[in-house]
């Protein structure tokens, strides 16, 4: 897949050099506008507290200081280190659950035969459309009666039951693309479905598993609504909740600290973006994931 294939000659023949330059200028301008807010936040986080206000849209601080990072880190009763650790544990456990459960279920739909298969598959697709608000309140009531409010269970456990049908769908699509002859041969050799899943399908599905894992991690990391409802004790907060508390407790004077912590909360996602950009973009392009 090289880009040259998609060159459209009709247009390019007029003024190739000129239109090319214009296009680049346009795109660079858009890129700049897109990134500017984030750079502004970075610059704000590096300024001394008294410099942030008074309406400066520029990017250059008069003086660079990391004060906001250290002040912000310890700005609440519980340090941001704790919030990061909490978020990390929750996101990793949720990711493991999503990948594990979704791949098992997807294997059943894509590779096994059982009665009612079409029916269940249709139901599964149906749940894709269902907004989670419908199950929110009864789930809350249920977790509450289990004594799980203010624990991480409600944020993690459902993932082990493949509630996010999206990942199942994603994997079913991929598994169906793996040649059937491989399983047939294995079955002839007396392989159990478990061995086929474990030894054939999984190793061949690394790209889709990785994609699912990455998205699962990012979504859990960014989730605000779930922790907002279920977690009330500050020592159990995720980064997103910590940030929200920070907005409350910091006055107009410490916006630079708020910016610093906000920026830090984006770092894991940014790193994933740097290293797995290709997978992310392919994941979206092939499945049309929401973001």
């Amino acid at each position, binding site marked *: 897949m090289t880009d040259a294939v998609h060159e459209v000659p009709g247009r390019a023949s007029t003024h190739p050099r000129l239109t090319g330059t214009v296009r680049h200028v346009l795109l660079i301008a858009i890129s700049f506008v897109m990134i500017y807010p984030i750079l502004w936040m970075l610059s704000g986080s590096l300024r001394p507290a008294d410099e942030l206000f008074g309406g400066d849209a520029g990017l250059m601080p008069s003086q660079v200081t990391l004060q906001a990072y250290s002040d912000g880190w310890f700005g609440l*009763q519980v340090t941001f280190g704790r919030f990061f650790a909490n978020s990390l*544990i929750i996101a990793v456990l949720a990711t493991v659950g999503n990948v594990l459960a979704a791949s098992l279920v997807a294997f059943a739909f894509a590779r096994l035969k059982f009665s009612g298969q079409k029916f269940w598959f249709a139901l599964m697709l149906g749940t894709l459309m269902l907004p989670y608000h419908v199950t929110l309140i009864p789930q809350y009531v249920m977790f*509450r009666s289990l004594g799980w409010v203010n624990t991480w269970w409600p944020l993690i456990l459902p993932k082990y039951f493949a509630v996010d049908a999206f990942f199942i769908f994603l994997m079913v699509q991929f598994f169906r693309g793996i040649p059937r002859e491989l399983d047939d041969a294995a079955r002839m050799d007396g392989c159990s479905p478990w061995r086929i899943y474990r030894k054939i399908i999984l190793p061949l599905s690394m*790209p889709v598993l990785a994609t699912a894992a990455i998205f699962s991690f990012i979504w859990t990391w960014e989730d605000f609504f779930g922790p907002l409802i279920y977690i009330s004790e500050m020592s159990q907060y995720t980064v997103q909740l910590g940030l929200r508390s920070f907005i409350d*407790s910091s*006055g*107009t004077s410490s916006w630079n600290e708020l910016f610093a912590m906000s920026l830090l909360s984006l770092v894991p996602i940014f790193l994933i973006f740097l290293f797995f950009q290709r997978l992310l973009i392919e994941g979206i392009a092939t499945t049309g994931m929401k973001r």
Partner: protein
Amino acid sequence: MNTTLIGRRRLLGAGLAAASLPLFDFGPAMAQQPNSIRMMWWGGDERARRTNGAIALFKEANPEVTIESESMGWDDYWARLATQVAGGNAPDFIQMDYRYMVEYARRGAIRPLDEYLGKELQIADFGQVNLDSCSVDGKLYGGNVGINAFAVFSDSAAWEEAGLEAPSYDTTWDEFSAKCAAFTAGNTRTRMRATADGSGQEGLFEVWLRTQGKALFHPDGTLGYDAADAGRWFAYWADLRKSKGCVAADVQALYKNSPETSPLVVGRAATDFVWSNGFESYQKLVAAELSLVGAPVLEGGEPGQYLKPSQMFSISETSESPVQTARLINFLINEPAGAKILGLDRGVPASPKIREAIKPDLSEAGRKVVDFISKVTPQVGPLPPSPPQGAGEVNALLIRISQEVGFDVSTPEQGGVNLVDEAAAILRRT
């Protein structure tokens, strides 16, 4: 893809290893020992600094007790407290407001403190009035943290610069609006106006109603005013907005009931309306010297102001360490060591003993507050009946309707009608 493959396998392995260990004991549900206290309050930076200081002192004296505290803005506080109470994991130590006390007490969310009276809680010398104001159906539900009265805070220098005198104790409502309009004429500060927009301030609205013999709520829990009253109230502020006497609606909309968001603090107004306990926090945030006086009066009218328990410290029904929490409450409101650190931030202490004890340590601003309470005391009327369930929602409604009038979405008259209609609907429903 090779790198991913290895990376993923490693990740998965690590994840599973991690999963097998902490899954069984994470979550704080089991960490709730009888000696741990979780507390929550609303308020700004200054209050957090003071409260955390007092907590540290308590911990020093009681090393076996662990305390986790959190503070937030007013709106957030009530939303979050409600969620936690519903979730069965309310904080042990709850900062309670007069407005919500009945609701929480009748729901069984906070526990009666009578059993601790005379033991962990030594607050008999607060006087019957200050105990009654924290009681529902004859039971005590909170320790009175301080006495409070509604006040007008002003940056007197800004007023003088504009060639005027700041509002004083006997300023009438008419004089007040005339003053504010005049301020604009003499004002030299570009972004500043005379006063914050008080139309969404329930405390001020209440004072205004009471000077006319009305009330926010009747004792039976229905509204104590009618659409015409509310309409006149909104019209009063609409006029001020028109004369540029008070800040524009989009400036007022940023106010979130915390000192940091007040138009007075951010330099957009020379006057704001706040409960007197906020004075020191405001003074800390403003370079100019502030003064405080009573709310405007009505000539020949009734006394509008009253002395209110600023806040109470309550204990949740579900608390597993009520005794320790009661001890902490006592430490904060009735032991000089703790009460000194809190100072006047939550109001003037009800206990005469504590008032004496903290006097020498008071800042200039603190002395002004004590002075204010004693000056306003002759002007006060009786404590209004405790507000009905749904009063909190009615407060949110008043703010919204005041914004509708402020942004010219509805006329003052229409605003009055809407307020009364919707408030009545809320009160009927709850």
